[in-house]
């Protein structure tokens, strides 16, 4: 993975700057000409997926609600969210802290193959799935307190990446 495409809700310069400072992936900001254009969720998915970069968003229903626009083979969608018992609204600062904790736990996150995976990353849980014939299929719901959670996540990512190679 070389590039990460930001969705509009995570399109913050401080997130981009953090990515650049780490030097592991290059962030791609939400296209400037789409800002204020009223572009729909489905159009965003349809336009971003062919670009071939992992999509980063905090919209928990981004993939689920528009799954008919997600092909079986896609570059991967990472959704960052809060735990269900956390009532706060996710901000870019909260997202940055969740991402930082995840990256600390999984130092090789940028080397993992995210292709075809739809991953919801929360502070306590990880929900991983994939798209199959325009339907969302859940692969695993991983408790980050469990001892083997990184291994489980890695195996699911690998399994999904080998499902389809045409994107």
């Amino acid at each position, binding site marked *: 993975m070389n590039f990460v495409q930001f969705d509009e809700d995570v399109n913050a310069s401080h997130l981009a700057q953090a990515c650049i400072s780490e030097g592991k992936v290059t962030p791609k900001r939400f296209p*400037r000409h789409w*800002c*204020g254009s009223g*572009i*729909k969720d489905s159009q*965003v998915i349809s336009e971003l997926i062919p670009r071939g970069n992992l999509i980063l968003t905090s919209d928990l229903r981004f993939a689920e609600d528009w799954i008919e626009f997600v092909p079986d083979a896609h570059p991967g969608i990472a959704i960052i969210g809060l735990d269900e018992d956390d009532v*706060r609204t*996710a901000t870019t600062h909260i997202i940055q802290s969740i991402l930082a904790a995840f990256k600390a736990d999984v130092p090789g996150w940028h080397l993992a193959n995210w292709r075809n995976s739809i991953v919801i990353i929360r502070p306590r849980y990880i929900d991983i799935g994939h798209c199959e014939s325009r339907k969302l299929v859940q692969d695993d719901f991983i408790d980050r307190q469990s001892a083997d959670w990184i291994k489980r996540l890695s195996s699911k990512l690998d399994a999904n990446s080998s499902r389809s190679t045409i994107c």
Partner: protein
Amino acid sequence: MKAENWQEGIVRPGSQKPHVSILGPQTKCPRPIVQEDLQFRKREATGWEDAFNPSRPGSHAAHIAYRTYMGVLMLRDSIDVDRERRHGIPVLKGTRFTASQVLAQIADGDSLQDLTDGLQLDHDILVNFLRGLSIILDHPHVP
């Protein structure tokens, strides 16, 4: 009663309590409302002085209703509700950035400049949203 005209049915004549609908009349503003518009609309509103005459019964209610109406107009010009953008959660006009996230970002310490420069959001839309919301909240919410 002249003061009724500019409120377009929001205030019932002779009523002490404003009858306010959050949806309001379907009036479209041609551009974002700024502070000068509020002043201008005050002046042009028929019967405005009458409505603000403290000896006139219901004038405070008329004032509240007028401000609420203006607040709703400002929100309408800065917020979209569209099922195909963020599933119908109110978003800033023309974007997929939720209004709730704007408030949460401010609560997390972001300034307006952080939101416009860092998140590429439109300054005028943000200001209208915040001003409109402040107007809507700025009256007693008890019966």
